[in-house]
């Protein structure tokens, strides 16, 4: 009997939990998002798309800048090397006979 009594209380409490959850359902049944939700989401997608385009543009610009830098670095290195080779050939400043 005691066991039955325990089970009954247990079941009642279980039922009361489900009943409360159903009250939450009823209380929120008419809830709707704030007006203009479609517009707000469209704006957020637009903003995200623009940020994504900007990120692509910045990446492309950074890549172009690094390629350009590499080009000028290479050119400067070649010029310096050519200048050293010429100096060595001329013995200029190195105490060598031409």
């Amino acid at each position, binding site marked *: 009997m005691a066991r039955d009594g325990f089970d009954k209380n247990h079941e009642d*409490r279980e039922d009361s939990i489900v009943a409360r959850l159903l009250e939450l359902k009823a209380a929120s049944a008419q809830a709707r998002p*704030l007006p203009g939700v479609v517009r707000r989401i469209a704006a957020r*997608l637009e903003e995200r798309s623009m940020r994504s385009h900007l990120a692509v543009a910045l990446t492309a610009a950074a890549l172009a800048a690094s390629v350009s830098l590499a080009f000028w670095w290479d050119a400067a290195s070649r010029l310096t090397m050519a200048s050293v080779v010429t100096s060595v050939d001329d013995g200029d400043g190195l105490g060598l006979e031409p």
Partner: protein
Amino acid sequence: MSELGELFVRSARGDRHAFDRVVEYTAAPLYRVALRMLGNPADADESLQETFVRAHQALVVGQWREGTKTYPWLLAIATRVCVDALRRRNGRPVPYGDIDASWLVSDGQHAERAQRVKELLSYMDDLPPDQRAALVLRYIEGLSNAEVAEALSISEGAVEQRLIRARANLRRRFGDDGA
């Protein structure tokens, strides 16, 4: 194919107007799911927006395939967004007095019910996020265990475990308060 299915196909091809219609059709039920999981309108609204941003991104990269159910697919995304929001909040439950219950009472007729629901929300706030999500999907949204499992990306056995633990946790809290 359903009208929503056709809008999904067009959205996946980059038709932004079609995606606006998807939002129009599904925002209200998904908002209610978020409200029930998160318990306040501000977080529900933020999660709703995040849900559609993720959904749009997933559509355009081809993560939705024709033939896949549309609303359950969105519901799974909304659930993940809400669980993420609850995880960020976890350990810092909203105190009972700070729960925004303005949405629970519209005409003063349901003041008592609002108090009971507010109490439930404060107890649910102490549950781990996946237990709270499982409770809402199973008992409020009326999904089967298999559908809850799909939405939470877990097995049906794991859903059953979460439901048992969630009910036990709530039972303990209501029992402590003599409910």
